[in-house]
Structure formats: C-alpha cells, structure tokens
C-alpha cells in the first residue's frame, strides 16, 4: 500500500497568556491510500489539532514544526496560495457541528453553487446540476427541496450529508472527518458512517476519522492511532488494537468503556488528563500509569514497531527506536 500522507515529528505549541501550551509533542503517523484511519483520544489529547495542522488552519499564536508530507510535498513549507489549492480539493474536512459550517442566511443552493463556481470555473446552471447530483450521491431524499432550504430547515443528519456532498465535490484523496457523528443520534450516526464507508468504496479516498468513541472506531476503521496528551501512544490495525492493546493507556481506555452486548465490570482510569501548560515530564501518562518505572519520569518513550505494524510508545516495550 502506498503512503498518502505522512506526519513526521510534528510539534505544536501555542503561546498563551498563561504560558506556552505544548499541544503536540512529536507526532508520527502514516495514512495509506484507500484506508480509514481512526484517531482516538479523550478531550484535549490533540486529535483535532492534528487534523487542523494538516490543513494549516491554526490561529496565529500556533508554532508548528516537523514535516507533513502529502503527495511528495511538505505542507508546512507551502505558501498560503499553494495551501488553498490543497484545502477542499485534495484534502477535505467535515466537522462535528454541521450547523456552524453552513451559513444560516443563505439557501443550501446558493452556498453549494458558490463553492462549485469558485473552484470549477463553471456556469451557474452547470453548478446547480452538479450540486443536485452530489446531493443524490449522499442519498438525500428530494434533493430539489434540500437545495431550496435554509440550513435550519434541515435536520442534523441532513446537514451533515450536505457537508459530505460539499467535501466530496472535488474528488479529494483525503477526507478528514472530525467527530462527524458526535452531535447525532445513534440511528443517524449509523446512517452517516455507512454512507462515508460506501462513498469511500465508490470514489477511493482515504478517511482520517477523529473520534472519542471506541465503538465507532471498531465499526469503521482499518487502522487506529491512540493519542494521549499530545503524544501518539499506540498505532495498530483495528483488530490487533482491540485484541492485544500494548500501551497501559489503551488498555485502560478499553476496560473503561461499557459494552452494549453484556454487562462487564468497568475499570476506570484513575486521575485526570494533565494540563498541557505544564505537562508531566518524561512519559506524559506516568502519573496515571499502574506500571510506572523510574525511567518513565525522565525520558519520553519513542514510538517503536513492537510487532509487525503495531507501534507503541512505552518504556515497558523498550521505548528506544531500533534503527
């Protein structure tokens, strides 16, 4: 499989009033062509900000370093003009709340046609025809009515379908979906996830799915990366990760989630997610870890390939990169 996007040693700091926040602490990950890669973690672990870094949609107080290689080019070195040619065309994104991604003052028709005209250089009629086809592709019943509606007249699930239609209008090679179903009911969540998977089979793009829900990961992803406090702690194929989690944090996360099939005892992780303004030294998970060793307080473990295609960053498994 070919690598589509490769993130190498990505660091991200925010300068804030209260000091520097160390938000990403050396992230490494590869997304292959035609796969669904899931990025999981709790609030504040840096999963959303990783995707924002890929598109360079960060506020001015952000300092990025490292490499993000996409189609042979380092995105961090591209000018804003070159980035505009990638955003929305080669890499598209959909967000958690589709209401705030759509302009409440304009009909769906106006908003879709504007985007098509801007990027494709086509007439209004052609743009309208294309918009209708896209809405059909995302299985919205009665596309004509949707086009004539304002965003508030549509339900959350329908708005998310409109966003997916817009995101797919340029045949992107990567779709970033940032918690696309968190605001939706489970039945609608299932519809949207199945739709994304179907469209992926049809149009052959990769998906970077950001979520906090391990159930969603298990149902949709091919590979998974687990993040904790700005670090990538484990990457593996989805079945391997659920069956044989290596990192104590992944293990803790898996034993803390309830299962809808039967009642199992829940073992919560103790403590809370650390503040990124003053993260713990060494391994950022060590204050909550049951297997803490002296080295964990001093040295940050590197992400190593422990077994084939199973990467982990933990001193229990060596923690030194074998090169």
């Amino acid at each position, binding site marked *: 499989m070919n690598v589509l996007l490769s993130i190498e040693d990505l660091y991200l700091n925010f300068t804030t009033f209260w000091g520097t926040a160390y938000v990403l602490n050396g992230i490494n990950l590869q997304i292959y062509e035609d796969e669904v890669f899931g990025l999981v973690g709790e609030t504040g672990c840096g999963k959303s900000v990783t995707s924002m870094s890929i598109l360079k949609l960060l506020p001015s107080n952000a300092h990025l370093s490292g490499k993000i290689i996409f189609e042979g080019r380092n995105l961090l070195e591209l000018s804003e003009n070159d980035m505009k040619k990638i955003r929305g065309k080669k890499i598209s994104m959909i967000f958690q709340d589709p209401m705030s991604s759509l302009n409440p003052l304009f009909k769906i028709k106006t908003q879709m046609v504007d985007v098509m005209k801007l990027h494709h250089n086509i007439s209004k009629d052609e743009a309208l025809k294309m918009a209708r086809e896209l809405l059909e592709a995302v299985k919205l019943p009665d596309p004509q009515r949707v086009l004539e509606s304002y965003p508030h007249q549509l339900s959350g699930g329908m708005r998310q379908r409109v966003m997916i239609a817009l995101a797919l209008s340029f045949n992107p090679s990567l779709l970033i979906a940032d918690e696309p179903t968190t605001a939706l009911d489970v039945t609608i969540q*299932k519809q949207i996830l199945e739709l994304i998977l179907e469209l992926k089979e049809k149009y052959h793009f990769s998906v970077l799915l950001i979520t906090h829900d391990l159930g969603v990961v298990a149902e949709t992803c091919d590979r998974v990366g687990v993040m904790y406090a700005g670090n990538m702690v484990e990457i593996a194929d989805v079945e391997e990760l*659920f069956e044989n989690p290596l990192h104590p944090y992944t293990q803790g996360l898996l034993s*803390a989630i309830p*299962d*809808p099939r039967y*009642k199992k005892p*829940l073992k919560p992780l103790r403590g809370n997610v650390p503040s990124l303004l003053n993260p713990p030294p060494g391994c950022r998970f060590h204050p909550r870890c049951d297997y803490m060793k002296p080295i964990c307080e001093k040295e940050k473990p590197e992400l190593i390939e422990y077994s084939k295609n199973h990467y982990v960053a933990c001193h229990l498994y060596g923690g030194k990169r074998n090169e």
Partner: protein
Amino acid sequence: MSEIIRVEHLKKYFLFKEGIFSRRVKYLKAVNDVSFSINRGETLALVGETGSGKTTTGRTILRLYEPTGGKIFFEGKEITNIPKREFKKIRVQMQMIYQDPYSSLNPRMNIFNIIAEPLRELKYEDIEDRVLELLESVGLRKEHMFKYPDEISGGQQQRVAIARALGVNPKFLVLDEPTSALDVSVQAQILNLLENLQKERGFTYLFISHDLSVVRYISQRVAIMYLGKIMEIGTVEQVFENPQHPYTKLLLESVPVPDPKDRKRRKKLILPGEIPSPLNPPSGCPFHTRCPVAKEICREKEPEYVEVEKGHFVKCHFPG
C-alpha cells in the same frame, strides 16, 4: 420489593401558537400516555432519540413541569395535584442530576457553599462535618472544599453535583444523561460511583440516557421511548437479548460495538429516515413511517401493550 414511584398515563403537552399573530394553537405532545413504576433500590433507564420525551418525563415526575394529565405516586401517595407547600416536603426526597455539571453549579460559590446551601435551608446541624462526609462519599478531598466550579474538572464537577443532591438524604434520583458530557475514563468513574452509592444507601434511580451501552451497564430495567410513548419496557436482559419491537431491534443494531470482530458478523441493518416532528406525529403507531414491518393497520390504529413474557411489554401490532 416495594414500589417507590408509579406513573399512570402521564401526559405533558406544550402549547404552541401556529404563527406570531395566529390564535390557533398546536399541542406538542412531549409525553403522551406514559405509565411505569420503579421499585426501591432499582434503576429504570429511559432510552430514546432526541425529541422522544425522555427528559420531559423525568422533569414532569419531579413536577418541574406541571403534568397535563395522568397521575404520579411517590411511596403510594399521589403527588400529582397536591399544593406546592405540601409537595415541597416530599420533593426533598427526590433529587435531580443534570447532564452539564458546570451549568448546574453556581460559579460564584465555592464547593463548600454549594454543598452546604441546601443543608442550611433545611436547618441541618453540624453542616461542616456533613459536607466533609459528603465530599468523601463521592471521592473528593478536603482541599477541594474552597475551590470554585471552574477550577475543577468536569468529572469532579459532576461529583459535586451528586454530593449536593445526596446531602438532603433523598430516596429517588432522576439522572438526566449524567455522563454524556464526560470523557470515557471519567464516565466509568461516575458510573461506578453511582452504582456504589445505590448499593450502600438503597437509592432508586430513573436513568435518562441515549447511550445504550451505558444503560446496559447501570440499569436493571429499561423503557424505550419514541415520540412521547414507551414502545417497549422490560428487564435489561429481556429488552437487550430478546427485543420484540422493531424500533428496539433497529436501535440496538445501530449501537456501535467496541469489538472489530463483531463488525463482519453483524447484519447491516440501518434504521431509515429520522424521528418525525412531535408537533405533527404520524397517525396510528407513531413508528409506522420508519418501520420495516408496518402494515395497513399500523397506520390506522395505535397498538395496545402486549405482555410477551413476565414484565416485558411491547406496544406493537406485530411483536417478535
């Protein structure tokens, strides 16, 4: 087992004008003929999608909304229409925990005062000792006492809200999505806390949730709501392992299972469409517009409850 809460044919309608200047009104039937009872020490979960009326049901039982019709009994005594002054004494024994702990705590009060306020109101003695005891029982420490709500994490805020509710020695708690604003690792902490408190003090819970995995974990009985009505009610085992209503089956099928191996085994059943507007509910069985097995009769006649096994009721013309 004694009954602590009984609800009979509970209704809550909200009035809407059809337009700003229109005199015609419409009813939003948020809770439309709901009946159930909860035994002491038991957890009944109310499950449903957005707009199914589960939160309104919880609030109407505590008379935060005045019911439009039906009867509510607390420990055998009808409380539907008793005067406010009299109800106040009973209301103390029924407490509520909300979804967003931050907005249910006064940001200008420190934790000590938040927990002490209801105790002072009810003229308790030794308030300081009591607050300390309460903090301990929800897993917080003394040093949290003089912090403000914005200085502690979401999980800790929810613990404070629970401590405050426990202070007045309630018997019955309505928990409205108490963990949906929390991260999974913290969610497990709060669920375990609620379960332990129930074991120690014999609390009765009405657990309102949209998360069926959490419901499976915490409750003994479960009621599935759709457009203001209970479609199926029974023990957790009955409803999860032997669902009879087509809605329950599709709802369970939609829940993501945290096991990738399960993915291939499962059928790809998707519940089509979306929940209709409660302002304009379908005729007959409210679910017929999305139901895969709907027939002519479902459009015309609302089904009655059928007891498929002991304590397991379904509102469907064609259960099973």
